[in-house]
């Protein structure tokens, strides 16, 4: 019956004629590699890379804004204007001592003459003699952010003993920075939401596109008596592998990018380029929470792809059954 059978030589014993055919290891029901599968893997890798970068970027911006806000709100400044009847050095020491008597203060530092001159250097140049100009002097008091002192009482006490003193609690700056930080975080969250939405839609439609090329497999499995759950699980396994590879590659690349940027920043501390980058973007380190976020994105993408594959297969089977129950829906019947 075999079309390819070769005429047998009678003298040759059958067992020596041909070795027993060996069955190759059973392959997966859903083909492991095809063009649409590779394209889907690339799409998933790109989208997970972008989502991870956005997540890391937003968390960096948020951390930087919080750091600015925290640094400024940790300090208050006492400014003392010079006056002919005022012993400036004594007034500075008195102001510091008075401030430190209030609970909620943690330390104080008088900005000495040299430091004050350095502060004014960009505007007044080098070699400034402070005695020649009525330059105010500063006392910086550090405070406990969580338990700040009573600023009104401190202000009143200071004005009482040193009328030339002015307490700046940085509220204006802090309020502006809080508003800016909140705005930045909101914009970042908005971008993150958009990127995530784009990622979800792209992954869902790319998965459905890749599955449409496998519809004939769903049909054959259905017609040889496979239950819907079995068919769905075969495709789920296949698409879980694809999505884990793609999302893993994208997430790993994003994590490596952050690690490389952080390493570069740590290796080039105190250089103009790094200072500029740090001032603009803050530290590139995303911390363990950032890496956990990247891992979470990989898992979310894998689950999303798997779920989409399952729902699409179930819907395909449902459509096949729908054609069965309503023949008018089919336009490909043969008579």
């Amino acid at each position, binding site marked *: *019956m*075999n*079309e*390819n*059978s070769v005429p047998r030589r009678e003298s040759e014993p059958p067992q020596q004629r041909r070795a027993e*055919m*060996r*069955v*190759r290891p*059973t*392959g997966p*029901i859903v*083909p492991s590699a095809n063009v649409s599968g590779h394209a889907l893997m690339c799409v998933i890798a790109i989208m997970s890379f972008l989502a991870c970068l956005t997540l890391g970027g937003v968390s960096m911006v948020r951390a930087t804004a919080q750091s600015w806000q925290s640094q400024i709100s940790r300090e208050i400044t006492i400014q003392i204007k010079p006056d002919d009847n005022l012993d400036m050095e004594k007034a500075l020491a008195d102001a510091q001592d008075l401030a430190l008597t209030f609970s909620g203060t943690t330390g104080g530092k008088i900005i000495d003459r040299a430091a004050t001159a350095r502060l004014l250097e960009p505007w007044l140049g080098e070699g400034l003699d402070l005695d020649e100009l009525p330059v105010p002097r500063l006392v910086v008091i550090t405070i406990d952010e969580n338990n700040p002192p009573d600023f009104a009482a401190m202000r009143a006490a200071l004005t009482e003993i040193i009328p030339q003193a002015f307490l700046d609690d940085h509220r204006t700056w802090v309020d502006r920075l809080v508003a800016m930080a909140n705005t930045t975080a909101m914009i970042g969250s908005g971008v993150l939401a958009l990127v995530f939405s784009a990622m979800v839609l792209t992954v869902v439609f790319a998965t459905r596109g890749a599955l449409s090329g496998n519809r*004939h*497999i769903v*049909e*054959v*499995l*259905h*017609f*040889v*008596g*496979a*239950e*819907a759950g*079995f*068919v769905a699980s075969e495709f789920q396994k296949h698409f879980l592998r694809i999505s884990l590879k793609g999302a893993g590659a994208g997430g790993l690349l994003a994590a490596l990018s952050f690690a490389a940027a952080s390493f570069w920043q740590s290796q080039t501390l105190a250089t103009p380029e790094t200072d500029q980058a740090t001032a603009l973007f803050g530290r590139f380190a995303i911390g363990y929470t950032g890496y956990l976020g990247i891992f979470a994105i990989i898992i979310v993408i894998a689950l999303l792809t798997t779920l989409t594959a399952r729902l699409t297969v179930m819907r395909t089977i449902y459509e*096949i*059954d729908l*054609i*069965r*129950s*309503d*023949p*008018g*829906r*089919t336009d490909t*019947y*043969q*008579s």
Partner: protein
Amino acid sequence: MECAAPYARTIASRVSKVVKRDWAVPLIHFENVGLRYGMGPEILRDLTFDIPRRSFQFLTGPSGAGKTTLLRLLFLSLQPTRGLIRMFDRNISSIPRDEFPMLRRRVGIVFQDFRLLDHLTTYENVALPLRVRGKEEASYRADVLELLKWVGLGERINVLPPVLSGGEKQRAAIARALIDRPEILLADEPTGNVDPPMARRLLNLFLELNRLGTAVVIATHDLSLMDQVEARRMILSQGRLDIYE
């Protein structure tokens, strides 16, 4: 044809189970069945017939008469617009969706276009119905190899369908339909792609299967094929069915 004894024994073991069933009840019963696509004319009209157990019949008629549509009804891939169909003594209109896979497992079908999966070897394609039933490969490997030898594909087990000839594909599709020992085999133009000697060999294969207890329905318009066997003929013409016993 190679020796069919081992496979015949396994078939026979199933047949013995069939014998215990009620032979008076046909495998499939159609009563006043009609089918139309959408709002179009009726493709099939008032079909009333039985497919008895262990029977052998040809389903024939001119092109466009509705042979494939009738096979699809028999295979549960279409539901009639009207009338009653009973399969395995159950009214199919009252069977829940999730029970259809179990019924389909009792029916073997050979599609006109084979519907082999190109990324699976001949062996894997034939083993597919057993695999989807969750069976371990070790439990069916010998059966599949035996059946492949029986249909003359013993040397082509690791070949992918695109490399197979039309006749080989046809036999692989037949083997896939038979592997789980169905109670009825439906074949749509099984000799449409092969030369007359191969058609004769395939017919012998179906006859042997029928002798082992499986009911066979062959849809064909090949008169010379039908002339080779004294068998029941179901002739579809203009949507109506005439049966010649």
